[in-house]
């Protein structure tokens, strides 16, 4: 090999080097279950990608544990796939239905603030995984934002899995050390005079933020209103979309 080559191109792969993925965040439950077992033919013939070296310590532990569970017949791959399907069936569209209903139905809104889990059940949304669900209304005077400084507590039955930034240290720390700065990092700046309330989700409660209903939506159907209710507006790091912003969004296929 020539000795004149520079040092800014890839070398061989026999040395450890950092990878670009988000540790502990980017790789979730959705790829570990397809990793091969030792007995698999592909593994023996080395035709399966060597994903192990892309994984960090805890990912390797998870895969090892899943493989033991499968080998002992305690869990099947199909059951794991089903469980992941169930997890991923939870999406922010569920929370958006709740908010849109509360926008159009003042009686429902009252019940939602009184007993949120019971109110969600009226819409067929099961939040039984949550001990205590609290809905907080953003208004022109007060703006709530949710964080979990200890880990990643989040109203998953209503919003699905939390975004990567919500689980990452920068947001978790800054949301309490400098809340307005944390919002600014996400491109959102509530009015200076508004009362900002940071809610740290550290114990038995989970919080859903009800964003303000945007102007220019009089007479809209509940279904159309729900399209304005974004995930981030229900975490409280943004507002609901305006009709113009909704218009500018690509049409879902």
């Amino acid at each position, binding site marked *: 090999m020539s000795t004149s080559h520079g040092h800014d191109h890839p070398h061989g792969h026999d040395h450890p080097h950092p990878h670009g993925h988000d540790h502990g965040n980017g790789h979730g439950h959705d790829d570990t279950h397809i990793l091969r077992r030792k007995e698999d033919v592909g593994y023996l013939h080395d035709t399966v990608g060597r994903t192990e070296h892309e994984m960090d310590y805890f990912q390797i532990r998870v895969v090892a544990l899943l493989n033991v569970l499968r080998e002992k017949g305690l869990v099947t791959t199909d059951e794991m796939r089903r469980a992941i399907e169930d997890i991923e069936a939870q999406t922010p569209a569920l929370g958006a239905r709740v908010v849109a209903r509360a926008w159009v139905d003042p009686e429902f809104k009252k019940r939602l603030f009184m007993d949120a889990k019971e109110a969600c059940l009226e819409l067929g949304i099961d939040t039984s995984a949550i001990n205590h669900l609290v809905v907080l209304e953003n208004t022109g005077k007060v703006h709530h934002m949710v964080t979990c400084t200890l880990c990643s507590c989040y109203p998953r039955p209503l919003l699905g899995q939390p975004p990567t930034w919500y689980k990452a240290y920068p947001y978790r720390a800054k949301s309490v050390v400098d809340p*307005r700065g944390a919002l600014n990092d996400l491109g959102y700046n509530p009015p*200076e005079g508004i*009362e900002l309330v*940071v809610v740290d989700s*550290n*114990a038995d*409660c989970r919080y859903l933020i009800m964003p303000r209903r945007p102007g220019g939506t009089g007479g809209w159907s509940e279904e159309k209103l729900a399209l304005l209710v974004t995930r981030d507006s229900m975490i409280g790091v943004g507002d609901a979309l305006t009709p113009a912003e909704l218009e500018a969004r690509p049409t879902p296929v």
Partner: protein
Amino acid sequence: MDPTKFQVGQRVRVKNLYPPGHIRTCPYVRGKTGVINRYFGRYKNPELLAYGKSGLPLRELYWVEFAVNDLWDHKPGKPQDKLRIEIYEHWLEPA
């Protein structure tokens, strides 16, 4: 139900303790003074649940509100900015 030890609106201080183990009382509020904002009811104690115990006796859980600027020397908030966090009764004392 038995009356709770603290009432909504009452000023409370979070105990400034650092016991080992699984603790949900975030360090940044320990030793700080806030106000009871809401009472959430009685829940199993996560400090015991974390070790496979029953979590009993149940613990009273309160929502305690702090001024953001009371939490940090650098006073990062507007004067009206608040932080609310869930604190179990055994971590609170009257202020």
